[in-house]
């Protein structure tokens, strides 16, 4: 039996830490990623909880722009994309957003560096991809992967009309081409690559959903087939997190979350699952 959105929102609110943030699971220390997802879910429902969490996010701005992963880590984190999306959803434009957007635009995958491109030229079948197309890495100095690229694209698409940073359209275009280049043979996305050492990689549910959400409106996608693939992945996967993202993707494009028709797995109190299941992705993405 699916948990309804009001119950999930109540659970998220109850799991808020004293510092205003959320851990990945109740009782864990606060991290940026679950905190921002919780805020996206609660922004229209629980103002006091939201304000407290928003203050914590503000205190985590890194010196060079962007936001830190958590209180223990000083460097800016890929989840800066989520904060930019949150800013966009709230319609707030300030200097922190400008700095964060600039940090995001400057962030790119290590695979486009000269040494990495040389390695790829020497051994093109090791990992097959177009090394001229840079997406976004999980961490500064590492290679591009599907999930952080999808989040960066959604974030930049959300704020491109209201921040004064140049080059956003070009960067979004390259990021989308990177995602399309990494699309797997079966029509979805693995977490990073489509073919390694001559073997096709299978698509994964979470990354397939996120890539399609980020490629909103791309003319090269056969959307009917792609969304059918999303539904198939949802029926085949019993992962609550996978189903949450696949449902978010279908909500964005078809306006409804599907009923998967098979038993829900045990509840782990995963804040991301509750938040992703509660966010109105169709309204959030349509407003971009």
């Amino acid at each position: 039996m699916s948990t309804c959105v009001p119950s999930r929102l109540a659970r998220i609110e109850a799991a808020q830490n004293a510092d205003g943030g959320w851990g990945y699971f109740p009782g864990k220390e606060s991290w940026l990623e679950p905190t921002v997802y919780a805020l996206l879910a609660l922004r229209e429902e629980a103002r006091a909880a939201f304000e407290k969490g928003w203050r914590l996010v503000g205190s985590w701005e890194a010196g060079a722009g962007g936001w830190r992963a958590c209180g223990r880590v000083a460097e800016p984190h890929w989840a800066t994309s989520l904060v930019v999306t949150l800013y966009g959803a709230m319609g707030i434009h300030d200097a922190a957003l400008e700095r964060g957007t600039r940090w995001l635009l400057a962030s790119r995958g290590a695979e486009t560096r000269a040494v990495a491109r040389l390695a790829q030229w020497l051994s093109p079948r090791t990992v097959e991809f177009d090394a001229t197309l840079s997406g976004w890495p999980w961490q500064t100095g590492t290679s591009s992967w599907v999930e952080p690229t999808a989040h960066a694209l959604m974030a930049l698409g959300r704020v491109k009309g209201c921040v004064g940073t140049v080059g956003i359209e070009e960067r979004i275009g390259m990021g989308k081409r990177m995602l399309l280049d990494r699309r797997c043979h079966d029509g979805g996305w693995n977490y990073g690559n489509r073919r390694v050492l001559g073997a096709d990689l299978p698509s994964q549910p979470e990354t397939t959903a996120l890539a399609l959400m980020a490629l909103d409106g791309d003319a090269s996608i056969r959307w009917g087939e792609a969304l059918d693939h999303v539904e198939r992945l949802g029926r085949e996967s019993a992962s609550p997190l996978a189903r949450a993202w696949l449902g978010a993707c279908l909500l964005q494009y078809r306006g409804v979350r599907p009923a998967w028709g098979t038993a829900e797995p045990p509840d782990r109190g995963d804040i991301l699952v509750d938040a992703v299941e509660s966010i109105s992705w169709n309204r959030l993405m349509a407003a971009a």
Partner: protein
Amino acid sequence: MEQTHGGCVTRRKMLQAGIAAAAVGAIGCKRQGAPPGVRGKAPVAILRAASYQEDLLDRLRRGAEACGLDARGKRVLLKPNLVECERGGVIHTQAEVLAAAVALFERLGAAEVRVGEGPGHRRDAWFLAEEAGYRTAIPGFDARFTDLNRDDVERVGPFAGEREIYLARTALAADLVVSVARMKTHHWAGVTLSMKNLFGVVPGALYGWPKNYLHQVGIARSAAGLYRLFPRSFAIVDGIVGMEGNGPVQGRPRGCGVVVMGPDLAAVDATACRVMGINPDKIEYLQLAGVGERQIEQRGETIASVRTPFALTPQFQHVRLA
């Protein structure tokens, strides 16, 4: 046209050879040696187990005895390999082996036996544990399990020539970290056994899925670096059915019929390599761990009696034992 193509390949091969030579040189310079907790001869036990239906607790108990394992009063963290999971497949540590390990440490009087993993590819660790059959096989699994990718973290260091790394607090808080790995070949590292399995204590929440930072630092340096950060550890390598060929995910099952265990992860991995027909001196992460200088005391079955050559990808043919 053909000549141009041929010339291009030649240049590639020359450059590849140059890069390989530079890499070998780097290995020689950066050998890190055994972690502080490892002294003298390292005992490694090899136990036969033809299938997962055998009495695995008995095998592990005999192996623990042979290695002089003392877990009394210790907080133990069992770290299986759940990089990905395919029902009925051989990517992950078999549930029966992990369940036997839980029972073993409880019988040995551990104060606490937890299970933790931070999968390298998929985000939903609980789902993978469910798919792997851990919830069914292990009593009280829900109360024992921690998703190490999304755990609280602590900064430790130095790590692999870098200043620091953040690791899952649950792993750092354990008195004994037990790497319960499956015996597999690996398309980047040659093999993945108990040392490489420690990648799962590095939090994905910070380093991502996959933990590409560890690849940027170097798989071998990272495995050797983590080995040094966990001197209080123990290894159980599930080689009852391993994976050969294009591991760690897309390889084929390879029945080997053994469990290899011991208190020094590098010594256990070196022994497992020899069982797999692989020369441990040619596995970079084992070189960095100083395994060539380690005296291993073999207990239980002899390597020769259980040797089962694993198929290797073309890139790793050179590591095969002569």
